[in-house]
């Protein structure tokens, strides 16, 4: 055994025993998603802990945030998840046209979601709601001072109660939005590759893997929307 043969590594062709039974890229994506679960656990867990232990009455989210708009945005994100999985179904049947169509829809859905979030951030900060809470002298600060902002557990809040509300709101939704943005970038890349004929009925792993990430991002939002906007 001596010749230094350069063997080209082909991890996907490795035979397997004691394996999980899914191809390497999909396994890799699921393992990555496990780490993402822990990342959002840190943010969401902290939110739960800080809110549960909060001395001040927590603001009623509906008094500060735009629920109807966000509910609609949630619906759009769910739709983009559907279009993603339709794209995946299409390519497993060899339907190139369907793949392209549904991928484009997904890209738009994702971009729309990010756009609405960006608008939401702009609008809220305009009204005086920032990561640090209510900006002194702003519209929201004045209203809180005058007892016009309801508490989630009854009564009204003091302006200081918005400090943690802002910290947790912006960090959680901000990092979720960051993840969606990364997802949109990947989605565009996959769409371009699809238009170049990069996927086939037997070679669609990239579509499935990016789809898993996309659904995950949707899943996190399902949790976030409920516990941040509706609780």
């Amino acid at each position, binding site marked *: 055994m001596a010749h230094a043969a350069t063997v080209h590594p082909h991890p996907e062709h490795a*035979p397997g025993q004691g394996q999980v039974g899914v191809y390497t890229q999909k396994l890799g994506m699921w393992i990555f998603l496990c780490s993402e679960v*822990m990342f959002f656990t840190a943010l969401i867990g902290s939110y739960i802990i800080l809110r549960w232990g909060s001395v001040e009455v927590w603001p009623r989210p509906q008094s500060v945030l735009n629920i109807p708009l966000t509910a609609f945005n949630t*619906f759009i994100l769910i739709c983009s*998840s*559907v279009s993603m999985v339709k794209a995946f179904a299409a390519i*497993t049947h060899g339907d190139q046209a369907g793949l392209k169509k549904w991928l484009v829809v997904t890209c738009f859905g994702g971009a729309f979601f990010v756009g609405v979030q960006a608008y939401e951030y702009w609008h809220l900060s305009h009204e005086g709601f920032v990561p640090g809470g209510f900006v002194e002298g702003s519209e929201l600060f004045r209203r809180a001072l005058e007892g016009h902002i309801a508490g989630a557990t009854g009564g009204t809040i003091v302006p200081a109660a918005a400090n943690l509300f802002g910290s947790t709101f912006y960090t959680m939704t901000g990092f979720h939005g960051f993840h969606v943005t990364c997802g949109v970038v990947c989605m565009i890349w996959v769409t371009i590759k699809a238009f170049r004929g990069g996927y086939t009925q037997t070679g669609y792993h990239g579509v499935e893997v990016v789809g898993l990430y996309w659904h995950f991002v949707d*899943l996190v939002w399902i949790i976030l929307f409920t516990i941040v906007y*509706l*609780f």
Partner: protein
Amino acid sequence: MAEAFERKHPNYIAVWIGLAVLTAIEVGIVYFGLTRRFLILALMLLAVWKALLVALYFMHLKFEPKRLLIIVLTPLPLALILVVFVLQEYGR
């Protein structure tokens, strides 16, 4: 390595309708005037139901090998431990 089985595709439109309906219910019950405890419970249940729909059907976990499910479930008890333990810091 290619999977040996035929790709199963559940009815994605049915799942989509389910998700839309659950979202509408979620938003709706906020304005129902339920007691806080019941509202929280109902919202959590609805959110978990939606999350499961996405995970099981869109992410195909229902049709994947059981070993993958075990891997995927691993972070959850850890998340629970962190939150439950730290919540003990508060008297209530």
